[in-house]
């Protein structure tokens, strides 16, 4: 993982027009996160850098806005920009649902295009989010954005796939025939998670938790792969969005902590330690319990986001080098396509691994919370 980071980082650096002030790399917004694992600042600094890279380029000469392109793809939008056709953008406008200081507003996002103001609302060009004119702050924004639409589509896809598989098992006697078609494809994945749940949670009550773990694994896997698909139904950076991974991690957190055994809570609040450690241990244990969802959130988010940024950077290299003559741009295009293929393959692997890791850690956390006195 780090190696590919380094490669993409170096390739970004290799761009001759990139004049990045080193100070900006460390400019990580500190107020948003209180505790981030060691590896995240690297990603953040890189994305931060690509912003600066893009901005400096855009201001220096007439050039393509690399950061703009990248952030358009990894960020959220009020419309789904598919492509450009004869100089005109082809995009699906999505419904805006907002409760501002003037009440609820529901309308098409077409009305807010190009910085237009509508019903006292406009899209802040810097943040890319709807802002209330009256207060200058973000209203309660439940719009069906690109990510929400992608979320709906991929979740519906998962729902259909699983229900069709379940229907196969209802209609066929699984004791007499081997699964075919969709069931044959889904069964190994479901059973992998099911067996993982049995191993990590224990024979007694793993059945209660297995559906959640299956759901988490297949949902993450579906969305990771949907994110790799570069065109319309896919392409949204859903599992690389911190809100999504936060919700997933919170689901795990609540399942772990609302169904914990007496023994689990005793280990947190009254562990068997020397008396002088008694007041310290609960603090450490509670902190550690809190850190578990945070690490789950950041791990999935950072890995998927980094993958998207890497692939997009590879593609953008082609456009950056276009002005340096046919030889340079031809050579670099071959290189970047090769790297792009490599990174796409790598991302397929990462998509699976991250879904697996999230599910496995969730099952281990649940297993720890289901511990009984020995």
């Amino acid at each position, binding site marked *: 993982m780090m190696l590919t980071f380094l490669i993409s980082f170096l390739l970004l650096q290799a761009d001759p027009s990139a004049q990045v002030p080193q100070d900006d790399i460390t400019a990580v*917004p500190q107020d*948003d*996160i209180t505790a981030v694992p060691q590896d995240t600042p690297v990603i*953040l600094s890189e*994305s931060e850098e690509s912003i600066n890279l893009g901005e400096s380029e855009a201001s220096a000469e007439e050039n393509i806005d690399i950061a703009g392109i990248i*952030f358009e793809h*990894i*960020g*959220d939008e009020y419309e789904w920009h598919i492509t450009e056709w004869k100089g005109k953008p082809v995009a699906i406008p999505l419904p805006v*649902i907002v409760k501002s200081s003037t009440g609820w507003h529901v309308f098409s996002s077409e009305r807010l295009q190009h910085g237009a103001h509508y019903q006292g609302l406009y899209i802040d060009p*810097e*943040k*890319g*989010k709807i802002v209330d004119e009256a207060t200058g702050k*973000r209203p*309660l*924004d*439940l*719009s*069906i*954005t690109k*990510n*929400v639409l992608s*979320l*709906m589509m991929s*979740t519906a896809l*998962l*729902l259909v796939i*699983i*229900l069709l*598989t*379940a229907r196969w*098992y*209802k209609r066929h006697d*699984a*004791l007499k025939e081997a699964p075919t078609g969709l*069931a044959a494809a*889904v*069964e190994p994945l*479901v*059973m992998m998670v*099911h067996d993982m749940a049995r191993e990590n949670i224990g024979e007694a009550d793993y*059945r209660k938790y*297995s*559906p*959640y773990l*299956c*759901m988490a694994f297949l*949902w993450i896997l579906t969305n990771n792969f949907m994110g790799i698909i570069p065109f319309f139904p896919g392409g949204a950076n859903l599992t690389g*969005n*911190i*809100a*999504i991974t*936060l*919700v*997933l991690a919170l*689901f795990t957190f609540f399942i772990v902590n609302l169904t914990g055994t007496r023994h689990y809570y005793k280990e947190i609040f009254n562990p068997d330690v020397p008396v002088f450690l008694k007041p310290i241990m609960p603090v450490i244990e509670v902190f550690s319990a809190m850190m578990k969802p945070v690490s789950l959130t950041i791990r999935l988010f950072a890995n998927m*986001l980094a993958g998207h940024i890497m692939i997009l950077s590879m593609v953008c290299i082609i456009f950056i080098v276009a002005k340096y003559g046919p030889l340079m741009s031809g050579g670099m295009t071959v290189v970047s396509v090769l790297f792009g293929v490599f990174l796409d393959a790598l991302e397929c692997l990462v998509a699976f691994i991250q879904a697996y890791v999230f599910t496995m850690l969730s099952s281990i956390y649940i297993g720890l919370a289901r511990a009984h006195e020995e």
Partner: protein
Amino acid sequence: MNLITPDMGLLFWMVVIFGIVFFLLAKFGFPVITDMVDERSAKIAQSLKDAQEIEARMARWKQEQAQMLEETRKEQSLMLRNATETKARIVAEAKAQAQAEADKILSEAKLQIEAEKESALRDVRREVAMLSVQVAEKVLRHELSDEGNQLAFIDQLVDEASKAPMHNSN
């Protein structure tokens, strides 16, 4: 554009959509699949165990069969031997019995012959005695035809008879 600020709208939709789909799949999706597959795994495990058991039983049967065959063969040879022995014994016994019978008949015949001989001898002896008495009578009659001889003989007899009691009184 802040990547690490969770967006409220997306949080809301994610909770709603993920929650609903999770509920649906946890009720109608995953348990159906996992239960069926678990059932199948259990059945496969059971079948394997059964097959193993049957195999063991078959092996046991085969062994038993071989053992039975072996036993039968042994019994057969034993019976054959017994039969031969019995035959020999019966023959021997028959021979012995025949011998005994023959001996008995022989000895009886001997005894009878002996008895016949004895009686024949007795007859002969009697006949001889009769003959000798007749001869003696004839001789005596011839001898004692004159007076002189008769007296001489009486004297001799008286003599002998008188001597004999003296011997006895002594």
